[in-house]
């Protein structure tokens, strides 16, 4: 049991870290692109057309993929007051059931998201001229990564719970 718990925790941490690095870069790029757009528009008086669209796509990637990090860290906003009053055994059953429902939603999101991405391949974004495949891809990836983290959270909870002192990812 303890072995499984330790393995699940480390997989969850590694996945979080693998995603955190590109997300930090995406967040920085988003800031940079907005600043460049602002500078060119107001200071150089020569507006760039693609910055608004590029920043928007970066934001969507950052926000949706980060949902998996919030899942791993159990930081999605929820009301735990009532559940925490249940006896431990009932609480585990309830949390497993609601997690199943969340898993089903994430599965639908991923499945339908893949279909959406595939059918949007030929659409071209207005300013950047890239295929809409790229911005829309964030949706099924968000669903899939969050689903993986949800399963890991469940495994961790079944096998003894998260570590008492969790480590911040090394950034």
């Amino acid at each position: 049991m303890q072995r499984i718990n330790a393995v699940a925790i480390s997989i969850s941490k590694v996945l979080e870290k693998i995603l955190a690095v590109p997300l930090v870069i995406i967040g920085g790029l988003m800031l940079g692109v907005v600043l460049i757009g602002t500078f060119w528009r107001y200071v150089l008086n020569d507006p760039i057309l693609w910055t608004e669209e590029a920043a928007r796509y970066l934001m969507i990637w950052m926000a949706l993929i980060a949902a998996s990090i919030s899942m791993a860290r159990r930081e999605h906003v929820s009301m735990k007051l009532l559940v925490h009053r249940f006896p431990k055994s009932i609480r585990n059953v309830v949390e497993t059931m609601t997690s199943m429902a969340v898993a089903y939603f994430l599965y639908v999101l991923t499945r339908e998201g893949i279909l959406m991405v595939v059918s949007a391949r030929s659409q071209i974004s207005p300013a950047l001229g890239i295929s809409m495949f790229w911005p829309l891809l964030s949706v099924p990836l968000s669903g899939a990564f969050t689903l993986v983290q949800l399963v890991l959270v469940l495994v961790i909870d079944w096998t003894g719970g998260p570590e008492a002192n969790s480590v911040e990812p090394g950034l």
Partner: protein
Amino acid sequence: MITFMLVVFFLLLLTGTPIAFSLGITAVFVFLKMDAPSLMKIVPLKYYSGIDMFALMAMPLFMLAGEIMNRIHVTHRMVELANVLIGNIRGALAHVNIVVSILFAGLTGAAVADTAALGTMLIPAMEKDGYHRSFAAAVTAASSIIGPIIPPSIIMVIYGSMMSVSIAGLFAAGIVPGVLVGVALMLLSARISKKRNYPKGKRMASLREIGAAFRKAFIPLLTPVIILGGILTGIFTPTEAAAVAVFYAMIIGFFVYRNFSLRDLPKVLFEMVRNSGSVFVILSAAAILGWVLASEQVPELVGAKIMSISSGKYTALLIINVILLVIGMFMDMTAVIIIMGPILHPLAVSLGIHPLHFGIIMIVNVNIALMTPPLGACLFVACSISRISLESISKEILPFIAVEAAVLILVTYVPAISMTIPKLLGLA
């Protein structure tokens, strides 16, 4: 179908399912119940388009600016400034707490982060000076809600993007109500301080001390001037202003206070990523359920229901306020705005209430809920910093809630409080 939706949603919510997924699951279950698998394609579409808005980017960027401001200890300079300005009156530190909340409100857009930053500094200081710890915690929690009411405000960015209301207009409309909350809280603190004989500060500060403190706080104090000046005169969009605020905060940290380096950048960016992860999905998932609600004409039905109880706009506003306060006591502020906004906003507009005015009513309302026992987020933060129980802070905070409720009533029934500045600036 509406009963089905309500039952599923609240069952999920009460059993501790994250709000975002409760919204999404409810929508998916409705599609299942309708036996319409082809509608499932709405799920990823709305999940994407629900956040596909340039204006929304102001939210993570203002979070980032606030994160940097906190990290470079802008709070300390604000406290020093407030201290030399009003440090000699009775209950000085309570007033300092409120004034700094007002000053800080112009720099950041969130309440909970402000509570943490201010509370860590001022609650121990107040206790050392002879204030009750529960009173110190209550003042901190009560005044932190000024942050999201005075611009810039993250919740106003969300409201404006979702409801297609001018964010600049909301920012302008929030100024007076926010200051009003501050003044009301100060009046109450003065009364309590007198009754309990809380200490006066030291002697009056000399002009030189005031000058020194002002010089130290001057550069960050320019932030609201740049942000608000830029947005309200229409030079910047809120998103651009937020990016400029981040840039400005970094410049202050790099060159003026020299307590921020490029190595800190990944850390603050990760905080932005992390906070985004839990906020944006609520918007995304709410967009899916929003599509279902609209196709079931729920906003119209709720509107008709409220109108059937009361015909006039004043009673309707009262009912809306009570509903919002009750929901806000149990649910996250952002979630209340995201879920209830699209239902109540059209109703208010049809009653002839100005969209900006109604936006401010909703925002002041959910902010009061933020400090209402038993679930207010700011209360929890203040409790954990001051290590007092929820019971003892709850007792202390009641008069503050009463005062803020009075301000809410004023804001609700005197439109001029919110509408004067937007009208003067031509934003309404």
